[in-house]
């Protein structure tokens, strides 16, 4: 079955999304979800993600296909925000449904590592009223290397 891959420019409701996803895959014994949200505190007033229309969503779809091909999944949801976000707001939700939990954990982990390190998003934070672009982190590339 095809993965559900979406790029959202407005806030989404993670619990509603997870509920819908779990109900759509009742035959799967395990559903793993990961929610990434804007860190509160640390002086960040807002976060903005920018994407490039011709590349970003096609890249997410390709990642979903690779993930589905690598593990026996009943379903996969990749939902990613773009645009302006406030602290505490959801950024990304990945849900993987599988007959066995380890496949669901691994698939969600794999999809997140790739979303973090090689998907087409550029991120900036507003601190003290000034915007700062976020540079790539070496850890993200190290995370990617885990998957060979």
């Amino acid at each position, binding site marked *: 079955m095809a993965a559900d891959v979406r790029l959202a420019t407005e806030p989404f409701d993670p619990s509603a999304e997870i509920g819908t996803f779990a109900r759509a895959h009742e035959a799967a014994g395990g559903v793993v979800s990961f929610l990434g949200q804007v860190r509160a505190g640390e002086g960040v007033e807002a976060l903005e993600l920018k994407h490039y229309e011709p590349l970003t969503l096609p890249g997410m779809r390709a990642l979903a296909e690779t993930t589905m091909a690598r593990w026996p999944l009943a379903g996969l949801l990749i939902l990613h925000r773009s645009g302006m976000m406030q602290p505490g707001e959801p950024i990304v939700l990945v849900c993987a449904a599988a007959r066995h939990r380890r496949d669901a954990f691994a698939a969600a982990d794999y999809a997140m590592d790739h979303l973090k*390190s090689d998907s087409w998003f*550029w991120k900036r934070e507003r601190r003290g009223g000034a915007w700062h672009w976020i540079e790539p982190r070496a850890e993200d590339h190290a995370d990617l290397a885990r998957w060979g």
Partner: protein
Amino acid sequence: MARLVFLGRLEDLAGAAERPVAAGPLADLLAGLEPALAEALQARKVRLALNGTLVERDGLVLAEGDELAFLPPVSGG
């Protein structure tokens, strides 16, 4: 005309997300830009997409209506 698209911090440097330019060889086009911007666009880590497809920069020539995007390293989702 063709169009340049600047992502991430390159947008700040260019002062806009897009800029119309005359079609022609990329090298000529870069020579006509502000030196600081041209230098940033030529950084090895900046990748290029022509009409939505990643391309190599060597010998690139823009045709009428082309969109060339400059993609700095991504900062992760």
